[in-house]
């Protein structure tokens, strides 16, 4: 890989051991990728909040040692300076308000809190969400970024035209310290054109429809760049959030085009540019039904122990939708309703009275984390329900539970009645 003079100086330790370790990692990583060079970035989203497990694996050698090993792949502990690039913390392991509901011990709480303040001291913005694009980090078209979180990457690449690959913890942390990331993949214009044409023959209206379509498309195209043709209704942030998250779970979609809606394609022709579709897929009634059945394949029992809303983290509009369904009613005593959102949005939800409506109904508005990332559920949970294709893809595998997938309304109803009655309409 070709290095500039400043990159070589970083590698050689001019800016200290941590920056040198970060540059060493970027070089090893860039060479495996086959990247020709690095590119400057000043917009990095990563995940550097650690708990007791990581501290133990580092022999309790302190936060610099944990950051060195887990964030920089440096077995040698190095002293970590403030981050050079604008850096943002993604979703983390703990809700600082409801950590006891998560079942965390005081020791775990203190360790995570200490890790958060370590990140803050190093200049990492504690947004603590998988959706930075809804709380102030909205990259512009063409902006080179280094983001983790597959659902956020696919959103900012496709909807906004930012340029990032799906980074991992170590590459994102190295980018935070150096302001550099391999110039590869979706940083290059020629890799952003469509690869598969998806003829959407079935109406795609609510966020359930978008989740189904995303899950189908991801499974079919895997790492491809799908181009959706036949979308009649303009979607919105919530729908595209569900679509991308689903496509990045069943497959590895990091970029898609909806001609006329997403920023880099006004037409199908423009979406494919010089490429020709490798394959044309048709999404019709049958594909929709099969996808629905796949997503519900882990569930049999209709007694629902937990309903999870907010994967990726809920917007204010989604919180209000839940409020409208629960206002004046109560969550069933054998069930629970948890809504997850960024910390900043919970603040507004408090101001707006939404948080109170949820509390009065016996539901919980949580922030900063989710059951899959934090690995927690109400005690004894066997069956969950969610309106997120992504969450129902991951949570049953991670937490060994059954998972129902349905519309937001069906999910919230099941929390109120304690029973799943969803069906594909």
């Amino acid at each position, binding site marked *: 890989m070709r290095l500039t003079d400043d990159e070589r100086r970083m590698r050689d330790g001019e800016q200290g051991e941590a920056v040198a370790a970060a540059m060493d990692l970027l070089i090893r990583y860039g060479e495996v990728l086959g990247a020709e060079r690095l590119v400057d970035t000043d917009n990095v989203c990563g995940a550097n909040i650690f708990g007791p497990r990581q501290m133990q694996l580092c022999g309790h050698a302190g936060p610099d040692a944990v950051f060195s090993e887990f964030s920089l792949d440096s077995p040698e502990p190095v002293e970590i300076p403030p981050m050079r690039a604008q850096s943002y913390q993604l979703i983390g392991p703990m809700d600082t308000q409801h950590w006891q509901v998560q079942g965390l011990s005081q020791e775990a709480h203190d360790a995570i809190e200490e890790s958060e303040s370590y990140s803050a001291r190093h200049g990492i913005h504690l947004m603590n969400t998988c959706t930075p694009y809804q709380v102030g980090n909205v990259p512009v078209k063409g902006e080179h970024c280094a983001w983790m979180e*597959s659902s956020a*990457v696919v959103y900012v690449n496709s909807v906004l035209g930012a340029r990032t690959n799906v*980074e991992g913890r170590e590459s994102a942390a190295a980018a935070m310290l150096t302001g550099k990331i391999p110039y590869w993949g979706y940083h290059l214009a020629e890799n952003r054109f469509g690869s598969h044409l998806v003829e959407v023959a079935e109406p795609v209206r609510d966020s359930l429809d978008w989740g189904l379509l995303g899950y189908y498309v991801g499974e079919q195209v895997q790492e491809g760049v799908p181009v959706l043709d036949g979308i009649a209704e303009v979607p919105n942030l919530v729908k595209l959030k569900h679509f991308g998250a689903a496509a990045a*779970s069943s497959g590895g979609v990091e970029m898609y085009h909806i001609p006329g809606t997403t920023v880099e394609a006004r037409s199908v022709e423009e979406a494919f540019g010089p490429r020709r579709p490798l394959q044309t897929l048709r999404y019709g009634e049958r594909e929709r039904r099969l996808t629905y059945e796949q997503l519900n394949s882990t569930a049999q029992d209709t007694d629902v122990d937990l309903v999870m809303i907010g994967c990726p983290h809920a917007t204010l509009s989604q919180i209000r939708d839940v409020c409208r369904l629960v206002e004046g009613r109560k969550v069933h005593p054998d069930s629970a309703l948890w809504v997850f959102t960024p910390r900043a949005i919970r603040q507004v939800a408090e101001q707006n009275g939404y948080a109170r409506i949820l509390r009065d109904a016996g539901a919980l508005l949580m922030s900063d984390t989710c059951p899959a990332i934090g690995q927690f559920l109400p005690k004894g949970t066997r069956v969950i329900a969610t309106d997120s294709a992504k969450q129902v893809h991951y949570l049953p595998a991670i937490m060994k539970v059954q998972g129902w997938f349905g519309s937001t309304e069906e999910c919230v109803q099941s929390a109120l009645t304690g029973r799943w009655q969803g069906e594909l309409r």
Partner: protein
Amino acid sequence: MTAAGTTITLRGRGLVGGVTEGEALVTRDSISGWGGIEPTGGRIIESRHELAGQSFRDRVLVFPAAKGSSGWSGMFHMSRLAGSAPKAMIFNYMNTKIALGVVVTRVPAVTDLDQDPLDVIETGDWVRVDADNGLVVVTRGGAVVTRTGGQS
């Protein structure tokens, strides 16, 4: 199908250096890291994965690609620290998840092979991975011929 004991050599691009050998674990399904594996035991946990429940610990993992969450590298990094990493990785499709994953797992890794490893290698074959030279030597049906050391 070739007879047990026959060896086949594949040539490709070594990514992370080193030489090792072990029993192959082969899948045609892409692998999710975060939410797809449990790093302490090195087990695949994705519900509909054809290897669900099986462990890659100390085996040569042969698979098409890395998919899913950006936590891929973090999970395989953790499996190394927990002593449950695969012995080597052989795959077809390059992306950032697998690139960073092989870097932090620090085991020999090879890609861009001159024959599709998914067609050539079967679970249970004995595989020697020489990532310094981009070579993969497959012994059909296990370690009857080459198991003479070096696999410790």
